[in-house]
């Protein structure tokens, strides 16, 4: 995975500071196996290469942003500094399901294959639907221009409703 991307994933400034040295450290000449290249370059993209994405936040507000092809939807949320509480807690490492997004059916079909690991994590997502995906697993391409992604209702709002234990 590209550390450059990884760095961008780190949402808050404190983490940015903690990891800020890593990019410089990588010039030391280490080469990892191809699959583990940590030095992916960034292409200079013309603005018309950008892909438009609409997010609908938990209040129902529509937020329109642009992302680069190859970026994940989680990358877009982080790059654009979108404030979705608790979103993408594990930084796209498939350890949680907080980057859960809901799509309409047509969009869902265009999003590409789902891995078993993503499905396992989706099982643990709150407010799961048939057209749910994890934002960290969806890579932007021109064919996804103009897609709409809805942030599911927050867990906290109704957390006690599942209770029936006492």
């Amino acid at each position, binding site marked *: *995975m590209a*550390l450059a991307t*990884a760095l961008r994933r*780190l949402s808050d400034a*404190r*983490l940015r500071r*903690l*990891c800020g*040295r*890593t990019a410089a*450290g*990588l010039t*030391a*000449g*280490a*080469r*990892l*196996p191809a*699959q*583990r290249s*940590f030095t992916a370059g960034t292409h200079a993209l013309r603005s018309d290469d950008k892909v438009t994405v609409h997010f609908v936040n938990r209040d129902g507000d529509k937020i329109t942003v642009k992302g680069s092809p190859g970026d994940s939807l989680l990358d877009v949320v982080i790059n654009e500094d979108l404030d979705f509480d608790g979103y993408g*807690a*594990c*930084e*796209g*490492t*498939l*350890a*949680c399901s*907080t980057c859960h997004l809901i799509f309409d059916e047509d969009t869902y079909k265009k999003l590409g294959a*789902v*891995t*078993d*690991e993503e*499905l*396992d994590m*989706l*099982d*643990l997502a*709150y407010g*799961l639907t*048939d057209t749910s995906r994890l934002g960290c697993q969806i890579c932007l391409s021109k064919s996804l221009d103009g897609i709409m992604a809805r942030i599911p209702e927050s*867990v*906290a709002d109704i*957390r*006690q409703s*599942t*209770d*029936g*234990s*006492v």
Partner: protein
Amino acid sequence: MALVNHLTASCWRNLQGGRMHKQLSVILRHLHKSATSEALEISATGEEAMPQRLITPADVGGTRRIKSLKEMPGPSTLSNLVEFFWRDGFSRIHEIQNEHRKKYGKIFKSRFGPQLVVSIADHDLVAEVLRAEGTAPQRANMESWKEYRDMRGRSTGLISAEGEQWLKMRSVLRQLIMRPRDVAAFSDDVNKVVDDLIKRVCTLRGRESDGATILNVNDLFFKYAMEGVAAILYECRLGCLENEVPQETQDYITALHLMFSSFKTTMYAGAIPKWLRPVIPKPWLEFCNSWDGLFKFTLIHVDKRLSDIKAQMEREEEVKGGLLTHMLVTREMNLEEIYANITEMLLAGVDTTSFTLSWASYLLARYPQVQEQIFAEVTSALGPRTVATADDIPRLPLIRGLVKETLRLFPVLPGNGRITQDDLVVGGYFIPKGTQLALCHYSTSLDEENFPDASDFCPKRWIRKDSTDRVDNFGSIPFGYGIRSCIGRRIAELEMHLALTRLVQRFHIGVSPLTTDVKAKTHGLLCPAAPIHLQFTDRETTS
């Protein structure tokens, strides 16, 4: 490593320490994570401190009284002490979970002296707790680990660190070993270890009169797991699966065994107050000795790699390598942090994997029909000889199901801990910040509500009809969930998937007449209570 261990250790410690939990008797509709403490500032005296703005008319409509911890059911302090310290409840922690759940319900409290533990034995409530986590969740009190590190001038690692320090290291390591596609790159390294595992099976069974039996398979899988983790973490082979195990490897295994076997004494090590150590020195000494052994081994291997890298750099050669090389070159963590994390990851990645492999092969032997189904799947996907890699695993859903089902029946960590970092309301009870929770994974994964015919071994239950076929499976989360879940999960899965695929492909696994019904016991981790002896006979297709 045994988190139950830490959990109970902290209970025991606090038994001496005497930290009373404030009993709060407040009427609250709902408190949510970060909002609560900041917005509410519930006073420690237990006064009602409910800001008006949190009670909305909609809330009031469905208001139920939030109960206090005082009202929560649970065994009495005395019966708990008898259960655990007199009747050795520690080895039956998993069964006690079930018994208490039946008796007290989905949420109950246990007291170990003044230390309170709130057990949560319901998948919805477990989900609530884990979903409400903040940025650096805490499992249990790790003071004894920290004390040893301070004493020796060593860093904490992912298991023992907390807060910012933990988050910093987790952020580095998760970018390296958490993504399945990154971990798939270790496929070839792991397969070389699987080659040796298969050879070792052939060697060991050749020593038995029937030419088939492997005595105590866990011993074999322990060495496989250790070799596998080391191949990834140290970028070198240790020779665990050779006839002659190198001395330094043998020393490490001894240190590791000491760590695991002295579970109870090491548990007390942290619990016994410092002033008592001159009187009862052994637990703390053993604890330190085993850590010394573990660190020593890491230092040997990490320092060796470091000097190799330095030599290469001096010769102006290109430095190539894997995980350890990357860590040493980039220095996103300092050297002490690398030592500590490598040590803790090796410690955490050996018997967890080996117990699961032991149970999986035991279950395959006990359920020959299931084994045949999996064999059929493997042969149809791969044929008799193709060596599976990570890329083949998506075509082997029953192999994935086998691992999931094994961990459901025998979750290697039968319970996990959390110390609440905010005031929470769980199951209708107000749980103040700082409360030790025990998430009862063993109990939820054997709950009929979550898994029909829960005691049956049925890897098929994990097979999806299609990609929209979903289950709410918080009942079985053997690796945990969220940002403090098992960092080695994907590596462990890879090691288990590749080993089990090859074993099933190559051998028919049967129960040895020497093995009877093997039960589980808790020894920090959930492990076989008796040795598992199995027979490995060649499949005709491979002969």
